[in-house]
């Protein structure tokens, strides 16, 4: 039976009818048609589906949709400004060659955002820990770490 869930998505309050067995990821991609958030493993292992819930990075593939009730969700689409200006982290990823196929990028950027919101000047170790739940199969980790460092220095 469908249920109503109400939450904030990228700053805007929304209310939708959902089937209770869906994950936050399925709702974001298939019902709300925001396809920036990716599905890799669907099992919590790869981090491609990372979004922020109340500012904390979580795997949306494992997050039951009804648990977002009353919470604030940020997806990669929420980082870009209304006039299309990229978030400093996004710009830094582009400038530092941290994007190859791009599949891991939305998750990486959001894990980095959660880190920088808490620790604006992280150490390299903190950066490595923060993205340890995000796999990049194109193995550009060094560039990704540099991109996050560069963004933190701005």
């Amino acid at each position, binding site marked *: 039976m469908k249920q109503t869930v109400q939450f904030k998505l990228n700053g805007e309050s929304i209310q939708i009818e959902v089937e*209770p*067995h869906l994950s936050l990821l399925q709702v974001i991609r298939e019902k709300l048609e925001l396809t920036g958030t990716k599905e890799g493993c669907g099992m*919590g292992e790869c981090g491609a589906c990372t979004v922020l819930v109340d500012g*904390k990075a979580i795997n949306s593939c494992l*997050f039951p949709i009804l*648990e977002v009730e009353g919470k604030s969700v940020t997806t990669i689409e929420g980082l870009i400004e209304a006039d299309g200006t990229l978030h400093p982290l996004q710009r830094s990823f582009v400038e530092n060659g941290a994007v190859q196929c791009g599949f891991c990028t939305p998750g990486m950027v959001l894990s980095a955002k959660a880190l920088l919101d808490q620790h604006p000047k992280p150490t390299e170790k903190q950066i490595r820990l923060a993205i340890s739940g995000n796999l990049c199969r194109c193995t550009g980790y060094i560039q990704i770490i540099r991109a996050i460092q560069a963004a933190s220095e701005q």
Partner: protein
Amino acid sequence: MKKFDYLKPQSLEEVLSLLNQFGTKAKLIGGGTDAIVMQRQNKISPDLFISLRGIPGLDHIEGNGLLKIGAMVTHRAIEQSPLIRERFPLLSEASGLLGSVQIRNVATLGGNLCTASPSAETAPPLLVYEAEVHLISQKGERRIPLESFFLGPGETALEQKEVLKEILLQPPPPNSRGAYLKLGRRKAMDLAVVNVAVLLTLNPKTGICERARIALGAVAPTPIRVREAENIIEGNQLNDELIRKAGEMAKHTCSPISDIRASSEYRREMVGVLVEKAIRQSLT
């Protein structure tokens, strides 16, 4: 994908009455990092999940002497709690090594224990601290040692309509120090191949080890205490010979299996190495 209903009760009383009403058709869910994965892999197929998130009285970390940790406290909250880092550092470390930031932000301490994986990250530290678990059902409440909570892989002393409410930790005796070591195949995001916790109480004057607690994970059907190894060092001044003997004893007491992550021979060998190493680290 198989469908399920999802209920979000507002109180523990309501949870207990829902469990009574739906019986085996329902399954509790905390952070869901085990439950949702098991549901996807068809290892469980409940008609209904009963969520424990947001229920008052399950997410506290409090207490001056006896420390009480609510079952719904996340590993991230444990990792970041100054109180736990200071008083129960081995637990703090273990929670900090579980999964990734994303997993730790939602996965709970109660869920880790109730899944009862032989490699459960937090089990060896909680066993050396001699933790107790507080269980509640409509029939009443009970408190049992964590050691008797684990019955087998995925099996606990929880009755079908019972909920784990909190985990209780008595402060260890003064002059206690320990170490937690996790051997994985990579640095992050891996279950333990072997995990070991050691807690020693040393007499500051004589240097004698007055009390020793050693626990192992991933090398028996449940996480275990190894009293045979504890007995070797308790009451003694520690030297290389005794430390080696304790490692040997732990190695021979456990009963590891071979699986995709390691062979039983390798696990057994590593128990010896890690127990020795953890004892030495506790001494420094």
